[in-house]
């Protein structure tokens, strides 16, 4: 049957039940953030790399910019922040994570800062972020991160102390270069680790207390374990049908990346148990798995559930992705809980973009083989060039090395106006047709 004309059945994604816990953890975390000033806590804003354990150990409330923008988009409450940002002059082609978060900063300043005057709307999450007492910039690969932090500092009148950690890109041109190896890897690991130790001195200056290293060690031991559990659960999705999808792992990003560490290990224990049970029961993440796909690109946060259900209706299990499977404490083995700083630096260096294309593509091809995918869907996110940079090369490698079709669609991280639903429909349907045709030929 021609799948393009097959009537859409009302199939839905079979989401992991345990990911509901993530929703509660996320809500609890933001409630804690919104209360932070009332509780007399120092607040640090940061983006990119997961430096939150450094802050959590020092009892500093941490606000991850992307996470706030993603949360607003997931709740469809990003519009006000984006409008405020545009009013100040931030153009629409600017990273929408940054644009949304800067909109929050501008709103915060207007309503509570130097230019206070208007009465804040209690229901509007745009203004609710507590203003920062410090900013730490530690952004891998994308130049936008450092500039975003700098502009945030300027929105707050440069009164907020800022600390920059420079994380070099791994170019990998030397003969010994490769994933987690070579002189360049070792040198950049040392360089970032040195800066992280200086960052700790900056934190000590802000808190006025000696840094509680023991607390960091304990947190990192938990994160290491949580990461191992997460990776084990992901690995089980090589099973057919796949017990969980890329979208479940998207929902699980916040717990591993920016939520308070206590609770995270337990969350992934629960997730792992459920995934194991599904494997035992032969229960899939989509009701009728006929296709297995890889997702390249960052998430379209306004569309997580929408896309999960859409692919389920196509009987397509999106089993792995660059965003979820190549980031977020991805190499727990590098973290020595008794001396974690260098391993933390190394995990920051392996964000899903921070290796040059040849290394990155090799890793992606490996994932595609491991998860036995039939095709690749590529999200060309309009304002996230960090993710779109290598996508044509990734598509070409998928065709040439794996012989699988790919399909690109346009969207964005948090600006819904860039999402083109009909393009996605027609292109993915065409790709699934191609997969069907190949199967028929092979049969």
């Amino acid at each position, binding site marked *: 049957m021609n799948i393009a004309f097959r009537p859409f059945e009302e199939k839905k994604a079979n989401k992991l039940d345990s990911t509901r816990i993530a929703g509660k953890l996320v809500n609890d975390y933001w409630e804690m953030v919104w209360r932070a000033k009332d509780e007399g806590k120092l607040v640090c804003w940061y983006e990119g790399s997961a430096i939150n354990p450094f802050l959590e150990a020092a009892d500093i409330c941490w606000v991850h910019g992307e996470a706030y923008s993603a949360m607003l988009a997931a709740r469809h409450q990003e519009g006000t922040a984006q409008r405020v940002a545009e009013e*100040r*002059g*931030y*153009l629409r*082609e*600017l*990273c929408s994570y*940054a644009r949304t978060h800067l909109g929050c900063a501008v709103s915060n300043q207007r309503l509570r800062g130097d230019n206070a005057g208007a009465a804040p709307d209690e229901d509007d999450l745009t203004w609710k972020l507590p203003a920062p007492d410090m900013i730490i*910039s530690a952004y891998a*690969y*994308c*130049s*936008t991160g*450092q*500039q*975003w*932090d*700098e*502009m945030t*500092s*300027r929105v707050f009148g*440069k009164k907020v102390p*800022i600390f*920059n950690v*420079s994380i*070099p*890109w791994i*170019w990998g*041109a030397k003969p010994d270069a490769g994933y987690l190896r070579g002189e360049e890897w070792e040198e950049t690991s040392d*360089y970032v680790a040195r*800066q992280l130790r*200086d960052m700790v001195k900056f934190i000590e200056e802000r808190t006025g207390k000696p840094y509680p290293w023991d607390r960091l060690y304990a947190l990192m031991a938990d994160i290491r374990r949580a990461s191992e559990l997460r990776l084990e659960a992901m690995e089980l999705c090589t099973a057919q049908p796949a017990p969980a999808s890329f979208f479940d792992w998207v929902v699980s990003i916040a717990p591993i990346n920016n939520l308070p560490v206590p609770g995270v290990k337990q969350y992934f224990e629960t997730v792992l148990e459920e995934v194991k049970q599904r494997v035992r029961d032969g229960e899939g993440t989509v009701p009728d798995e006929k296709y297995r796909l890889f997702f390249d690109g960052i998430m379209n946060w306004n569309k997580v559930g929408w896309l999960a259900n859409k692919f389920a209706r196509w009987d397509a299990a999106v089993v792995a992705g660059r965003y979820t499977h190549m980031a977020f404490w991805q190499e727990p083995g590098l973290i020595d809980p008794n001396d974690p700083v260098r391993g933390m630096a190394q995990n920051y260096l392996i964000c899903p973009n921070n290796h*040059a*294309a*040849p290394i990155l593509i090799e890793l992606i091809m490996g994932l595609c083989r491991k998860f036995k995918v039939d095709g690749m869907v590529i999200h*060309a996110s*309009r*304002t996230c*060039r*960090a993710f*779109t*940079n*290598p*996508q*044509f*090369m990734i598509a070409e490698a998928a065709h040439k090395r794996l012989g699988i079709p790919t399909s690109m669609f346009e969207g964005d991280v948090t600006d819904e106006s860039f999402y083109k639903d009909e393009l996605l429909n027609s292109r993915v349907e065409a790709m699934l047709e191609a997969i069907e045709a190949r199967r028929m030929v092979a049969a």
Partner: protein
Amino acid sequence: MQRFAAAAHDPLGYAKAWKERTGRKVIGSFPMNFPGELAHAADTLPMILQESEDPITLGHGLLFPFYCGYTRSMVDQAVRGDFGVLDAIMFGDHCVQLLGAADAIRMQLPDTRVIFFQLISSMCDPWTQGRSEESFSKLKAELEDFTGAPVADAALHASIRLFNRNRGLIRRLYQMRKTGAAPLGSVEMQHVVKSSMVMDKAEHTQLLEALIEQVENAPAAAARTVRLHLSGHFCQAPKPEVLTMIEECGVTVVGDDLYHGFRYISTDVPEEGDPIQGLARWYLDRNTGVPCPTRVQNNVDWDAYLLNAIREERAQGMIVLMAKFCEPHMYYYPEVKEAFEKAGVPHLLIETEHESMALESLKTRVETFVEVVKHRQAA
């Protein structure tokens, strides 16, 4: 001026002719912080790779259309085989779009050496000078490996002196332009600066000396009605037709901070001491001299620099030329906008594109802006 214009118009053609004439290597570099002095001291021709005037064709298959014109054009030229004259390509800045272009170019040109030396972009950290020295040292080592010969300090000092001389002469033209003594329009100024990015520095300097003598003896420029500063446009040169259109609206451009303008020649390298330390010092000094939104430096303000430049140039307003999709510029623009509004200095934002622009519609906007400036002055 014709020779400057010819090199600016066809940089790769100039490089090809130079290579045939000298038999030496040509090294193309990405903007904006490549120390050409190092490659010059290594007995090669350093040239800053320029956005092509051609429409993007094959490059569409490697970079999305929502990238700046410069990166798309670089990739397009690489895919089309236009970079055959280059023996090596170097880049050191970490603008996310440039990184994408670098990866694509390396994959497209497997036989061309593509060297990356990452410059720290956080400019006021205790380790910025040291890290910059490390980056320039690595670059020097790569160059030595590439050419197969060491770069002696004496040769590097000589190149630094030559480059400083060249920059100093162009700054003289800028000074004369400010006072109205140089009858050079914006397109001509661009030809001078852009060709300096491309041509053999000694040859360019010689031509520049002749030009300055000629300009000094020429009658003063005819004063137009409104004096403006042009700001922005980092990696790529604004299209000459845009500059001409602006001036045809009754504008005298009395200063700029364009990369293909004052930004490129603003700062000299110290001529004494360790040359690598000197280059690192130059890298830092450039950003305090003419702040750049591609760097972060909390104790330096581009908006304040611009307002000060406008006072010094006795400009009545500013036109901001923003290359579409240029993220650093998009980040900083609201700061400039607010500062100018607060200071009561009029400015106009124009987004430029690699592809052809609706010049007539832009002209209407510039004409309106010129009228606004005149009214402000009269009020």
